[in-house]
């Protein structure tokens, strides 16, 4: 039980007053951003990231990941009380959560949401605990071709598995790749697309882009839509909590299924949003009376929340072990790791054990503390929504600007952020997904370097991507995923033909 010993060590690293205080602060901030429509996990983490630059990496990641858990918890509050999903992955929670609140069962729905969030994360953390040490032994097998294959896999799976129109994903990703090329090219040592500007020398910082793309653009959209906030009062009594918990074992199939979907989608870059919908849809499909869903059924809260949390948590595993983020927030945490001087990748588990196991331990602790915190503070957070949007919006814009400036102490970055805000707004209007853009901006350079180093090493022979079992299977999988919609279509046609022939007989 090497993992167990390391985990205990992680707890030892973590159990200091300073870390625990940071944890609570992070959770409270996270719930806050989760509750605010238009902010949310990735933005909250992006804006607060520079605050952690002066901390040691372990404290910083504990605080940031707690913001992340907090946002995951907080998203459920507004979905249930106000029918406003604070987070995209809470949309599915509104389907049954809001009807429950309308029937006066808000407390029950909230307890169900928080509890299932907790269960989802717990399953994912267990997975991370026992898979992580195995992944670290891969460490040395990764040379440039292997790294490129993994990046290719990420890009391809975004295109092949994403829910958005393929051409839009490709457009978004290509633009991201183009912008990632700005600045110094490590392989040739030359400058690219800087047009003689010293500001562009640094390249386009993806955090600046993310704050603009998500934060500013969301404010613009909300302003346009004149979001009205109306809600139900809620408080949770211990009696309700216990009665929901007592019924919990009845729903073990739903919980398990959603956890599984969440973990799977979290590790492959599908993200929490897809997971929550898939969890909900599957629970509905397998229920004896699907018609009762959408009318205030507690299972309709359990299913999406468990899946969203399981995927949100397990998204951190590929980020840590391979340097590949499974979700938007994980992508921002990845940027953070590099800022703190930690190179995410297989060797992180060997070279920075304290950090990795501190983080994993913080997932356990953070979730327990978070559960207690949300159950006790629901009324307070619900009152945030009574503050007029006109007062909240300027504060968000200012905090975005501070965040963008603080990354590199450059005024230019604030203009860049505003520019990206407009880009984000336009993208959302014309339905171009932002996630592939962000992904390309984060991984574009690394993918390019890995590809070119592979080419230098092999003398320009593309066969290097099939030169051994590891790289070969990743590359093949990437290509399969890229064409997945086509393959899926072919399979469906075969299945369809078989079924019709069966019925015609």
């Amino acid at each position, binding site marked *: 039980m090497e993992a167990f010993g390391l985990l205990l060590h992680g707890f030892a690293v973590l159990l200091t007053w300073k870390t625990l205080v940071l944890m609570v602060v992070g959770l409270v901030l996270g719930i806050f951003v989760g509750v605010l429509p238009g902010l949310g996990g990735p933005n909250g983490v992006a804006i607060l990231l520079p605050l952690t*630059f*002066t901390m040691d990496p372990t404290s910083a990641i504990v605080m940031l990941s707690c913001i992340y858990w907090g946002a995951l918890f907080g998203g459920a509050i507004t979905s249930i009380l106000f029918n406003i999903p604070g987070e995209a992955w809470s949309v599915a929670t509104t389907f049954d959560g809001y009807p429950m609140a309308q029937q006066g069962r808000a407390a029950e729905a909230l307890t169900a949401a928080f509890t299932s969030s907790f269960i989802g994360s717990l399953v994912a953390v267990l997975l991370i605990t026992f898979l992580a040490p195995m992944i670290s032994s891969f*460490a*040395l*097998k*990764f*040379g*440039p071709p292997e790294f490129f294959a993994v990046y290719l896999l990420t890009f391809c799976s975004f295109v092949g598995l994403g829910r958005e129109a393929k051409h839009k994903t490709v457009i978004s990703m290509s633009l991201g790749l183009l912008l990632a090329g700005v*600045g*110094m*090219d*490590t*392989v*040739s*040592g*030359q*400058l690219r697309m800087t047009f003689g500007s*010293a500001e562009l*020398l*640094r*390249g386009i910082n993806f955090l600046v882009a993310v704050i603009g793309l998500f934060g500013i653009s969301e404010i613009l959209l909300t302003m346009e839509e004149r979001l009205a906030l109306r809600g139900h009062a809620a408080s949770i009594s211990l009696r309700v909590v216990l009665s929901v918990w007592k019924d919990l074992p009845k729903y073990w199939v739903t919980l398990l299924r959603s956890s599984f979907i969440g973990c799977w989608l979290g590790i492959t870059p599908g993200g929490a949003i897809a997971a929550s919908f898939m969890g909900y849809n599957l629970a509905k499909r397998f229920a004896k009376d699907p018609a009762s869903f959408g009318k205030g059924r507690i299972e309709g809260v359990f299913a999406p929340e468990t899946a969203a949390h399981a995927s949100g948590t397990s998204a951190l595993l590929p980020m840590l072990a391979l340097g590949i983020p499974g979700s938007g927030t994980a992508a921002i945490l990845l940027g953070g790791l*590099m*800022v703190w*001087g*930690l*190179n995410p990748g297989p*060797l992180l588990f060997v*070279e920075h054990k304290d950090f990795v196991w501190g983080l994993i331990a913080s997932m356990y602790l953070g979730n327990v503390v978070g559960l207690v915190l949300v159950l006790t503070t629901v009324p307070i957070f619900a009152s945030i929504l009574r503050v007029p949007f006109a007062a909240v919006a300027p504060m968000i814009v200012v905090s975005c600007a501070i965040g963008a400036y603080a990354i*590199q*102490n*450059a005024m230019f970055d604030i203009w860049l952020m505003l520019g990206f805000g407009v880009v984000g707004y336009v993208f959302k209007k014309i339905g171009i997904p932002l996630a592939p853009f962000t992904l390309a901006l984060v991984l574009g350079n690394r993918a390019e*370097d890995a590809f070119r*180093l592979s080419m*230098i*090493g*092999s*003398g320009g022979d593309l066969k290097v991507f099939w030169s051994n079992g590891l790289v070969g299977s990743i590359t093949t999988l990437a290509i399969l995923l890229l064409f997945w919609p086509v393959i899926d279509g072919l399979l469906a046609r075969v299945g369809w033909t078989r079924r019709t022939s069966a019925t015609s007989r």
Partner: protein
Amino acid sequence: MAALLLSAPAVAGWEPTKPVEIVVAAGAGGASDQMARMMQAAIQKNNLMKQPMVVSLKGGASGAEALMYMKSSEGDPNKVLIAYSLIYMLPLSAKIPFNWRELTPVSVIALDQFVLWDNSAGPKKVKEFVEAAKAASSPFKMGGTGSKREDHVLTVFLEQKTGAKFSYLPYKSGGEAATQLVGNHTESNVNNPSENLEVWRAGQVRPLCVFDKERISYTAKVTDTQSWADIPTCKEEGVDIQYLMLRAMFLPGKVTPEQQAFYVELFHKVTQTAEYREYMEKQALKPIFLTGKDMVQFLEEDDATNKALMTEAGFVAK
């Protein structure tokens, strides 16, 4: 410790009032990063400064990020750059609008060595290594940090002196170059001692020769059988290439003489600490302390040497 505290205000009239940022122009885990962290620890443990020191990694654009950051921080006495040969090379190879003369020199605090390393499963001697490289069907892969910089220059000179061909793979940091050599993804690298120390101790790589006119002076055993002093010079092994790299501290331009004096004193004290001495020995660096006119003279000469090497290697951008 109390004596140190008391002596500090007597020498310098100025003191930082907010945390001091030590700017690293390289990736995480590289030699600059490790050195910055050593100094951070030495300063904190010995109470050399009231304000904390934070390490700020600005390795973007092959370190150009840090240079431009320092250039744009004119007049800010709370940032110190830990510089190395990139201050000469980057403006030449990539036409970065930067000149070290625009910064305020504080002190040269060490000289770093370069060592030719191969995988411990590879050839044991420079001669065998060169023969193997010549005989190989595809060129040996040489890992290094950055393109058209010290590692790349050394590779070019290695090719010129031996006649062997290498494919140079520019990684983002020395740490990455080290793990790639361990994983057999490259055949060799020319890392600084500190960058390969851990994998050498783990028996995963082998030092072939050191690019200096004399052997490294440290004789304490690093691995079970070898000390730094046991590594032959490349000249002894028949490949006459010498290169040493400065490790120097700079403040941004236009700081006051009092602020400059504070840091000269601070880093002088750092070089007196046990942490510094231990680090010098562990990482096989040459201790040195130059400041004022001596430092400027050293920098001018070093600049000329590097410029000549870069020109000969054909890395100067037109």
